[in-house]
């Protein structure tokens, strides 16, 4: 007990907020490890054009060759290098995940701010609309939308971005409702500060931490959804590679049984990326929570 009290005083006097957050984050070894993994994989995806041994769309070698020194992860049915496709696929999957998360975060934050701050009829309308989007079985909505719009990179980003926001909108609205009643916001209103300032410079910064944590889970979810859609053939279209559509071939029995190098690596890559994002998000939740310092 005594010890933790000491720690708390150190928190207040010597460390900036970010230092505290980082110190708490570092205690989660699995999350630190995940962060390193994410940085390495993200770097590899970013540098794919430089480090990929072959052109991902070029027919570089024999058909369906097992892994060898020349093709580290083998080649696919039409002779493209699997490792190169894996790197490019990761690039696309991360891009889809990050862009969809950005879009849904922006929509959710704006709608949540409006609903929470103004209340009344705006709140009612926005929240009923949120209910509608939430009452949709998520995958069904995505599937219907994906089958309707021309499949491709940007339509998949937009679809995922436009269905993922309700959670964030609710979260932001809830926080704004409490913040609106605090003295510093009331003080701003009394002082006649412009609305834009109150919303974006006073209220929003005080709710960034939960938004950030929530956004990591949206990132993980949208990467899983992209993979599932591409796997069903409704997402990223060949010849472009994505982690999901690389698994598409495994629906055929020959690939599934005889050529595991074609589907195991992209599948494992999705698992590694998503689980790493989830671990980082979980540690962030703990690190950003002002009440968590009493825990170990």
């Amino acid at each position, binding site marked *: 007990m005594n010890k933790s009290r000491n720690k708390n005083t150190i928190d207040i006097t010597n460390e900036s907020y970010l230092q505290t957050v980082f110190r708490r984050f570092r205690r989660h070894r699995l999350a630190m490890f995940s962060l390193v993994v994410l940085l390495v994989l993200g770097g590899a995806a970013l540098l794919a054009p430089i480090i990929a041994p072959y052109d991902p769309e070029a027919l570089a070698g024999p058909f369906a060759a097992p892994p060898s020194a020349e093709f580290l992860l083998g080649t696919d049915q039409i002779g493209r290098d699997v490792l190169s496709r894996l790197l490019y696929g990761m690039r696309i999957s991360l891009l889809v995940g990050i862009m969809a998360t950005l879009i849904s975060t922006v929509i959710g934050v704006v709608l949540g701010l409006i609903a929470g701050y103004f209340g009344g009829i705006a709140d009612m309308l926005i929240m009923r609309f949120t209910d509608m989007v939430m009452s*949709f079985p998520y995958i069904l909505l995505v599937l219907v939308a994906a089958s309707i719009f021309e499949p491709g990179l940007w339509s998949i980003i937009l679809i995922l971005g436009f269905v993922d926001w309700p959670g964030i909108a609710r979260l932001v609205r809830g926080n704004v409702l409490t913040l609106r009643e605090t003295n510093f916001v009331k003080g701003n209103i009394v002082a006649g500060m412009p609305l834009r300032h109150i919303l974006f410079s006073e209220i929003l910064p005080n709710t960034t931490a939960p938004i950030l944590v929530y956004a990591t889970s949206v990132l993980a979810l949208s990467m899983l959804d992209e993979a*599932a859609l591409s796997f*069903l053939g409704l997402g990223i279209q060949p010849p472009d590679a994505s982690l999901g559509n690389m698994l598409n071939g495994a629906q055929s029995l020959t690939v599934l049984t005889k050529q595991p190098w074609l589907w195991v690596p992209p*599948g494992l890559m999705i698992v590694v990326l998503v689980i790493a994002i989830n671990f980082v998000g979980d540690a962030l939740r703990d690190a950003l929570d002002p009440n968590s310092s009493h825990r170990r």
Partner: protein
Amino acid sequence: MSKYIIKRILIAIPVLIGITIIDYAIMCLAGSPLEMLQGPRISEAAVEAKKIALGLDQPFYIQYLVWMEQLLHGNMGFSMKSFQPVSQMILDHLGPTLLLMGASMITGLVIAIPAGIYSAVHQYSKGDYAVVTASFLGSSVPGFFLSLLLVYIFTVKLNLLPSSGMVTLGTDGGALDVAKHMVMPTLVLAFSMAGTNIRYIRSAVLEILQQDYLRTARAKGIGHFLVINKHALRNALIPIVTVIGMQIPMLFGGQVIIEQIYSWPGLGLMTMSAINSRDYPVIMGVCLLSAVVVLVANLVTDILYALVDPTIQLK
């Protein structure tokens, strides 16, 4: 209580109507189901006649109103592909879906509840870390990848379990045969559900363990077992009920992909083929059904809340 339920139902109705409008609008943007008919052997005029016969020449809001009017008369329309009534098609496919959903839900909870409680009671122990890590794995593995792995292991390598359908072709099945077909899809769905649930249940139990009434229970000296299994568990029921309520819509969606992979003859498989052939009335029927299921699940969750916890007052 009954006042509250009526109020909730009244709120749900406009939401439901809104959902059907959005649905219909999205679908009309999609393009016509007649695109599938077009070909060298069908004349332009025949397509046009078909269009008028199906009412597709009308603007979208008229089509919507016609559909709505029929719905209020209890008619969900006919499939444009097989010409069967939609309600009949849904009824035919509902059984297998409910069977799979129920089985995976029970399996998921049977894994998640003990694991979540164990992990909360032994917080920060090695066992706790193992359970939490496993639960992250459960919610991070894409269902289709896990399905492929299971098929690879149990069908291809060990030749133990069938990988598609609900009964072996050419036989009339029987409970054992169906059960064998169910194992893999159930496991996949249960695994991902348990992944999320374990963490919810763990944090719910953790919160309850810090309550004063549990300290009192411990102080009474009634023993660890009774404290956990009687006093803590009962109060942990509330968050567990919420989790189950939240899971139903997720399950409903997750089924679609899993049914597709295992060719399980349920609603998901029907939906996928309807989506692929742009069979509007069928898609609308499924969307309507799923929206109703989700809204009812939310309502029931809120009511169960009040039943489990007498201190919650419904207004």
